[in-house]
């Protein structure tokens, strides 16, 4: 599934509920999921990680949708190479 399709799927599944929730609270949920992700990464097993990366991605897509951002377009920033030095792999120092 590409990013645009993923964002559309999130809109289809939760768009209405998330719009009701509003940007501030959607962001609160996003941070809650980041907390879960941190636990999964540092203290969880592989299953936890798979679940939590999925959840964070889902909330990120919902957040982008509500903020009027097209994730696929945002991702293009990195498509050609490092946005700072334009090289791939990045050739910036440090």
């Amino acid at each position, binding site marked *: 599934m590409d990013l645009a399709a993923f964002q559309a799927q999130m809109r289809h599944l939760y768009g209405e509920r998330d719009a009701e929730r509003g940007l*501030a*609270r959607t962001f609160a949920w996003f941070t*809650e999921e*980041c*907390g879960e992700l*941190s636990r999964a990464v540092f203290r969880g097993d592989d299953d936890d990680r798979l679940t939590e990366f999925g959840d964070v991605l889902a909330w990120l897509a919902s957040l982008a949708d509500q903020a009027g951002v097209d994730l696929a377009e945002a991702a293009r920033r990195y498509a050609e190479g490092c946005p700072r030095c334009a090289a791939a792999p990045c050739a910036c120092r440090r």
Partner: protein
Amino acid sequence: MRLRPLEAGDLDVALVQIATSFGRARDDALAERTRSRLADGQLWGLEEDGTLAGHCRLLPGAHWLGGRAVPTLDVASLAVPPEHRGRGVASAMMREAVTVGLARGDGLSVLYPSTTRLYRRLGWEHAGSLTRYRVPARVVPTPGPTLRRGEEPTDWPAIRDCHTAFAATLSGAAVRGEERWEELAALAHRYVLDDPGAPGRLEAYALVEHEPIPGSWQHTLRLTDWAATTPRGLAALATFAGSHGTFARDVVLVDVAPPRWAAVLGEQDLDATGGLAWMARGLDLPVAIAHRGFPAGLGLAVTLRVDDDALPSGPWRLEVADGRGALTAAPGADVRLTARAVGPLLTGFRSASELASLGLLRGPGEALALLDAAFAGPPPVMLDFF
């Protein structure tokens, strides 16, 4: 058990928890404020087997430290209803709040404790104060210029600017949020002192309330909010307060520590009438250090680590130069901090040497002296309660 943002359907339960935890009347004003905080994503609750065992307010804040604003997670209104108390619900919530703050990229967490023990065990420590003072209106000298009523449409933004200029010079003061400004905007009496050198700018202001004293013909004059960015401004505020001497018994105000008002009074008439300690805890420390200001003209480097299992804790190298600081990964650590040492060190409430003598931090004397210099500053204070 997980801490999650409250949803609209949680409002009723939250209101019952607020009423029973803080002894508050469940009126329309409380319901409205709670609803708006919920809609704003500030209310978080701990869910246990499908019921809300407690909730709290986690508000994205910022506090002035060393002249710069550090992003913080301000914790307030922690409420565990009686039927859920005494089995670790509050502690679990605060542990989770640390994770939320880290995910949000906050440098510190700040709160007013109703019990120190609960938070201290989890890494918060006393890190500043809020002190209310009282002085008999009659004894306040009146040598300065006169304030005018601040009712022009341009006065409110000028008042806000004056506050910001004042608060930015203090350590610990909150960067005021809209909710607090709205409360203050509702006060009926605003007085201001124009800066003659800069049209549209103020040297001082006072937002005032008159509180009747039961059974007396006198009242208390509350400077609910004030700021003075110049000596002339402070003299004008004193003059304003002193001019109430015939009908106001006392003037009550929040001041820094030591109080600036003591410097304009003739004698030691200013009494502290109520002090509150606030606590701070480190969250994302590289963020806290990068956002905080440091004394200009100081250059130093110290290696350190924090014994804190709740968050990334080093070892780091702290570098201070040109009024800025940076915390970068580095091997070895001269100074070892307990989690509880971070809050008071970063706000400047206690020096590294003092924290060492309290057993909260250890390291060679030379490194401690460098940390003492790095975090030196005025005693941290807050002007607002949240």
